[in-house]
């Protein structure tokens, strides 16, 4: 008995050691980035490297900001990362309700076909969607940034997630409202949606993350700085600032902070989406 206790304590100690080393490996690059972004060029190239910036060069951030319009990049990304998830949730929730609760011919076949589109990888639809956008005259517009990205695999997945969630809401709740003369829309709006807040929040936060980090689509459709979201802006910025690494890293820090904040505050929704679905965040 005593031996197993000793073994357990040893095992936990070993686990702590491994986990702490791992956590340091993960966190140090981030801290190193922030530290480097506040250094003078001379200190940046000091050998051996120094951790504490002396003096603290806040002006690197000003230089980053004057080089390219980070305020526009951030504003664009914030708007896109809120507007796209909101529309996606509206479209996914209504479709999920139809798939979960309404009776109509061909429902299950349609649902399967709908789910099947998840197998189509983004790289297959990239070129045709670019051409569609070009025909519509949407190159360099916000329509291009908002409308085609709504209909990605992640929305199919969101619809699936919400449908599964709606199925767990007891029919009795809805039936009571129907007896009181509530329409289908009314039960959806007043019964189903308010009872699905956790699933909606999970979908919202995962969609936010996807939009904040999106890169390839805006890269090919936008070349006007004023309409660029942050990741594409950052990639242009990296070439513009070239070898001034203190400025490059200041820009990178600006781009990373919002999503890290969202992660810290919305962590449990990320984890929920992950654990419940097995695919969260993809």
């Amino acid at each position: 008995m005593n031996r197993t206790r000793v073994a357990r304590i040893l095992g936990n100690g070993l686990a702590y050691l491994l986990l702490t080393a791992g956590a340091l490996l993960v966190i140090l690059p981030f801290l190193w980035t922030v530290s480097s972004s506040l250094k003078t060029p001379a200190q940046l190239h000091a050998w051996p490297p120094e951790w504490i910036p002396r003096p603290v060069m806040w002006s690197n951030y000003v230089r980053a900001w004057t080089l390219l319009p980070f305020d526009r990049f951030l504003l664009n990304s914030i708007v896109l990362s809120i507007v796209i998830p909101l529309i996606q949730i509206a479209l996914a929730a209504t479709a999920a309700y139809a798939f979960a609760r309404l009776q109509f011919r061909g429902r299950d076949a349609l649902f399967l076909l709908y789910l099947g589109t998840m197998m189509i990888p983004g790289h297959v639809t990239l070129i045709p969607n670019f051409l569609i956008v070009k025909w519509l005259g949407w190159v360099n517009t916000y329509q291009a940034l908002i409308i085609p990205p709504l209909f990605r695999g992640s929305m199919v997945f969101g619809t699936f997630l919400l449908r599964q969630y709606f199925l767990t809401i007891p029919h009795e709740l809805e039936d009571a409202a129907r007896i009181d003369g509530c329409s289908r829309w009314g039960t959806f709006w007043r019964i189903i949606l308010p009872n699905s807040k956790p699933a909606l929040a999970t979908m919202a936060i995962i969609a936010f993350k996807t939009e904040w980090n999106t890169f390839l689509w805006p890269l090919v459709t936008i070349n006007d700085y004023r309409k660029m979201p942050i990741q594409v802006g950052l990639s242009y910025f990296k070439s513009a600032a070239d070898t001034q690494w203190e400025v490059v890293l200041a820009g990178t820090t600006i781009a990373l902070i919002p999503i890290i904040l969202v992660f810290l505050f919305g962590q449990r929704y990320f984890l929920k989406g992950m654990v419940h679905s097995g695919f969260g965040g993809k």
Partner: protein
Amino acid sequence: MSRSSQPMGKRPRLNLRRQDTIAAWTFLAPNLAGFSVFMLFAVAMSLWLAFQEWDLLTPARFVGLANFRKILTGDPHFWRVMGNTVYFAVGLVPLCIATSLGLAVALNRAIKGISFYRAAFYLPSVTATIGISVIWTWLLNPEYGLINYALSWLGFTDLPQWLYSTTWAKPALIAMRVWQQSGYYMLMFLAGLQTIPDHLYEAAEVDGAGRWSKFRHITLPLLSPTTFLVSVLLIIDSFNIFESVYMMTQGGPGGSTETILYYIYTNGFQLFRMGYASALAWVLFVIIFTLTLVQFWAQRKWVHYE
């Protein structure tokens, strides 16, 4: 059961199904309309494009199977980028499984601070690959980077040039990806570990099983459905490497890190070969699809479902 409690008297029962049908299509219309254009029509168009030659300036020209024939027999560059992509997959899949499984096993116990570690490991997978790529380009800087500093501190001399070296650029990109993604797959393993009942381990302990034999004979087999899912996702992931290559190496040095997706991008959006890029996209799709099917077929041999 729910059918019997529909509203009585107010509306004729016969119409309920019709009402449902109308409501359903109204609820579905906006979603399905968008998907018809940007998914179904786009897929059809991509198929059509794969049989054309089109540079967007002159009209598209039907070329039959010429694009596919060129990919498979007349384009050494395609095999080069496929080789690179396979190199990435072969490096990434086992390494990522090993680190994420290791972290999950270490984390799956009653110790303090679990939520801190879990959050720390998960964090890099939430942050954008573009930003992570910039950070790692700086870390991997041969002269001033933290990584070479750490190596020299450990006593290594003759340090790698990382992203400037045809030998070391690929391992560097793999290391970055393992660093970024392990926390994500760790969470999947953690969820899998928590479904293994304690009494199995207790029974094994009574029989005198050691730590390793418990891991080997209980944890690994019972975790195999998760391992299977993780390896399917990881293979898809490693065939889709693009952003890190775009940001860190632009496919270089000497084409040593150019992946298939990067090759599709340059063909489509820098050389404006719409037909050829679409054909490449379908070849990639077929490869990923086949690999996934093979994994589903092979799982019967090693995945244990209860």
